[in-house]
């Protein structure tokens, strides 16, 4: 009951989806609703599964609330920030649900706070990547050096500064010419091997779940 039915559910839904994907006419099979509208059976089931997942939309809020209420109760380090987080969490969610996505205040906060915080946090990585590159250079191995030289050529090939230093019209096509060759030959070969390796690993894991051999996704008893 606790494990068997979920495993059976997984296998049934897996087979149904696989059949829909593999058999063309089944994919195009349409059903008619009482109001006369038609829809693909596949789309209807797919929408229902997405609907089921969307019902869990409050899981993130619930999880954050549990953690941060715990922080406040036990007065853990930085607990006042947890109050700040909970106020924003519930305030903005209620505003969004009442006003809608196009709401004036909701949109103002999105553009005024979320967008700059998000893009600035991502841009912080420019500094940390620079320090990582410095550390990689200090390792002084052939592999690290090669990686850094390639990264440098790629950046030079992408910018007008690179073209000014070593022009596209000169020997070997300049930084841009070497960048193109690196992207099309060794980069394509390397990533193709990585992608095929990832595919084989992922596919084997999927088949193990399909055969009921892999059950860790159901958690522990």
């Amino acid at each position, binding site marked *: 009951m606790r494990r068997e039915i979920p495993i059976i559910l997984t296998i*049934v839904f897996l087979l149904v989806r696989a059949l829909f994907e593999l058999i063309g006419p089944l994919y195009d099979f349409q059903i008619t609703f009482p109001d006369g509208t038609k829809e693909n059976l596949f789309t209807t089931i797919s929408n229902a599964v997405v609907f089921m997942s969307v019902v*869990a939309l409050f899981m993130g809020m619930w999880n954050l609330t549990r953690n941060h209420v715990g922080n406040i109760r036990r007065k853990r380090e930085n607990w006042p920030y947890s109050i700040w987080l909970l106020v924003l969490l519930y305030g903005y*969610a209620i505003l969004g649900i009442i006003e809608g996505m196009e709401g004036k205040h909701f949109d103002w906060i999105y553009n005024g706070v979320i967008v700059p915080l998000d893009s600035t946090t991502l841009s912080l990585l420019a500094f940390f990547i620079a320090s990582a590159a410095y550390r990689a250079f200090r390792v002084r191995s052939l592999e690290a050096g090669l990686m850094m030289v390639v*990264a440098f050529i790629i950046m030079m090939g992408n910018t007008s500064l690179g073209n000014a230093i070593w022009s596209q019209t000169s020997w070997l096509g300049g930084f841009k010419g070497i960048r193109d060759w690196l992207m099309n030959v060794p980069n394509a070969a390397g990533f193709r091997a990585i992608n095929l390796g990832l595919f084989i690993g992922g596919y084997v894991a999927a088949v193990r779940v*399909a055969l009921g051999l892999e059950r860790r996704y159901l958690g522990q008893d």
Partner: protein
Amino acid sequence: MHVSTDPQVWIMALCTLAVYSYLYKENPFWRLAEYALVALYTSYSVAYYWHGYLIPRIKTYVIERHQYYYIVFGLLGLLYYCRYLPGKVQWLARYPIAVEVGWGLGAVIAVSPRSPMQQLADSMRPLKNVNDVIFFLLLLTAFMYFFFTVGKKSPVVSVGGKIGRLVLMVALGTAFGNTIQGRISLFLQRLSFLLADWLGIPIG
């Protein structure tokens, strides 16, 4: 130089500075920005799925089309929350997880081989020029790096694997270069916002 008088621009600038203050060291402004980002993004996704998926689907399928099996899927979705309830009912969360995993893996098993097979077929292209030959040899060596079962017992695989490692480093180097550039362009955007939009200093 005309400093902006728009309150939204000021809030944006203060948010930007609060995040960059982390470059000096951890401080209360950074913490406020960090907690705000986590809270607001979570709330934004709640509002997005509420208005974009949940309510429209209830209206369309349950109210207009009388597809009451949606209620069954909705109840299944509610079982996700059992994960946070006391121990005895936590296992009920496995039902929606099983449905979702099964539906997703069905696509993986049926569809996912297409792209790798196309890539594999493309790799077996006719060797018309030097680049085709180099590509093929580099691909073989990169594969050899992943031959863990044959490993160092075979000298061909051993040497090939060493060359393959260099090929992988070149591939990672290109990804690294492109990533650095993406992040730097984001940083320049923020810098141009601070200088031009906020402080009104003309640039470029």
